[in-house]
């Protein structure tokens, strides 16, 4: 047991040898090694050396029996997690195959959904999902960005912390409970608003998006709940992005005589609009698949209407409502194919947003100076 561990140490020691002079030079202060390097590079150097050491140690440690087992075990866990995406795609595609074979992929764009008569058009659900998500984002995006600006740039730190805690707690509340609240509180409020519009002497009800009878349930109620659910995401990502804006950017604005608002609107927001775009993609991906709250307040009527007050149906809601009551295996397969759409769209949106945020983190490079 002793011999292999000594073997293991040797390459590690060999790897440690080259960086040793620069490592010891740091505490010595103005030594010859420190003079030869410019100061700013010093904090970066040990990081690079460490990875070299880590690699050496890792190579050495594979000789150790228990370590090899440990590495294999944890590696299997990691592979299982990453493999879950592939498993999800494979099973969802496999599950939707009977539906695709029966009526082809193009049938998705038909507006008729009637499983008992073998009609599986998904257009109404695609429309419902897109419409409610757009309503939700149209409310949550400006609200989230303005709130993030208030938290980072305007409000005192303590108050900002309390507000962000409150909004983060909102993210922890399960969708089904927001739906419960939606049924008993939000829908009556929305109905009152719709009655007001309906009776308004200005003829507001002739505007297409305000047309239809006031029912309370519908796109507007669903969109409002989605806005509540997207808000914490947009807020927290935007806040992170705003905090990464270097102080020099703010100082430059003030040096030019800008007011605080001008600094925010002309120097800070333009600096991080990519991050805000990434945040909105993440929020969008999140609201697309929201199921319970939407199912409880959207009215569950497959129809395509421009009115905010009309009831509708979304991809996730139809899966939730009809899956256990599906009349045939073909209907189950059709519902799984709707789930496949949700899966692929959410993977694409999330991947795009993450890539954007990663590039943004690299590009700005102002992290050390962040407030």
């Amino acid at each position, binding site marked *: 047991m002793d011999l292999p561990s000594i073997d293991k140490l040797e390459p590690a020691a060999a790897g440690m040898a080259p960086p040793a002079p620069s490592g010891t030079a740091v505490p010595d202060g103005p030594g010859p090694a420190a003079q030869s390097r410019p100061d700013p590079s010093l904090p970066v150097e040990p990081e690079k050396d460490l990875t070299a050491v880590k690699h050496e140690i890792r190579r050495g440690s594979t000789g150790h029996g228990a370590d090899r087992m440990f590495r294999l075990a944890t590696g299997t*866990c990691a592979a299982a997690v990453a493999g879950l995406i592939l498993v999800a795609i494979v099973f969802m595609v496999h599950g939707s195959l009977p539906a695709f074979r029966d009526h082809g992929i193009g049938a998705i764009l038909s507006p008729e959904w009637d499983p008992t008569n073998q009609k599986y058009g998904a257009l109404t659900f695609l429309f419902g999902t897109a419409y409610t998500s757009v309503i939700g984002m149209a409310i949550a995006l400006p609200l989230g960005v303005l709130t993030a600006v208030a938290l980072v740039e305007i409000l005192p730190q303590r108050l900002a912390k309390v*507000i962000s805690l*409150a*909004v983060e*707690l909102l993210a*922890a509340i399960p969708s*089904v409970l927001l739906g419960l609240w939606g049924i008993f509180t939000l829908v009556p409020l929305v109905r009152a608003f719709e009655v007001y519009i309906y009776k308004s002497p200005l003829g507001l009800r002739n505007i297409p998006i305000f047309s239809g009878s006031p029912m309370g349930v519908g796109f507007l109620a669903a969109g409002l709940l989605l806005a509540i659910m997207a808000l914490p995401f947009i807020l927290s990502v935007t806040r992170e992005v705003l905090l990464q804006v270097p102080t020099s950017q703010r100082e430059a604005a003030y040096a030019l005589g800008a007011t605080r608002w*001008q600094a925010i609107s002309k120097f800070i927001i333009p600096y991080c609009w990519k991050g805000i775009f990434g945040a909105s993609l*993440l929020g969008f991906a999140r609201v697309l*698949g929201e199921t319970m709250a939407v199912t409880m307040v959207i009215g569950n009527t497959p129809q395509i209407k421009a009115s905010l007050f009309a009831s509708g149906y979304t991809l996730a809601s139809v899966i939730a409502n009809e899956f256990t009551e599906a009349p045939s295996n073909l209907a189950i397969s059709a519902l799984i194919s709707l789930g496949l759409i949700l899966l692929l769209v959410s993977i694409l949106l999330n991947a795009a947003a993450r890539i954007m945020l990663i590039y943004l983190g690299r590009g700005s490079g102002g992290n050390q100076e962040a407030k």
Partner: protein
Amino acid sequence: MIRSHSFRKVQGRFMEGICLLAALIAVVPLFAFLWHLVAEGASSVNPALFTHLPMPPGETGGGMLNAILGSLLVVGSATVAGIPIGIGAAVFMTEFASPSVTSALRFACDVLSGIPSIVMGLLAYQVVVVPMHHFSALSGSVALAFIMLPVVVITTQEMLYLVPHSLREAGHALGIPTWRIASSITLRAAAPGVLTGMILSVSRIAGETAPMLFTAFGNPYLSLDPKSPIATLPHMIFNYAISPYDDWHRLAWGGALILVIGILGATLLSRFILWWHQRSLNS
């Protein structure tokens, strides 16, 4: 265009006022929700809620004993399966994998955590329910484990990442094998953070409803058999909320209050642990 100073000042104040208004609106939903929850739910939380089974439709009284136990069972077994795998994956990412593999795995977890929970339910349906030919508590746990895995990995990895490299190097300098360093040094130093991640991921899945619809399926009777359908609290709240009976609405609010106390309590507890941990690190 150059505007006068006073104009810019007034414009700035106005826009800042709008930002503050947005911040005010942003906190309204939470408090409106909590207000109604306590107002409606407080009166229906009584011992019967915890000790009685649901009554048939139309009869008053009854409780949610089966759903509370069912949720504990389903969430508990998902946690037992999900957390070791998640922590294992996070340890692999921080202790063994090269930087590019780590970031690829992190990317995969970020994408996974964005997959809608209903899709994870459909996946569990096909992986477990179809081969077994019936709905089961087991399939519900599998769905929840799928949902919690990326959350556990992300939070654990972030916490392990915060452990200083010098601690690991000290272990290596003593010739300690890597598995010992990971378990006795890295994980131990990050223990409060890892615990926080566990609490957060459990509270994330405790309220999941959509995947339960076609995995755990629900059950009006008391059942603790992992192979048969089982009631869960969020699913029962959903069924009761959309029912036409006032008494069921009352029970739904009571169940919602219990669930929120559990979830918000866990979230606040995890924040407190983290705050306490960071304070003890700084001092």
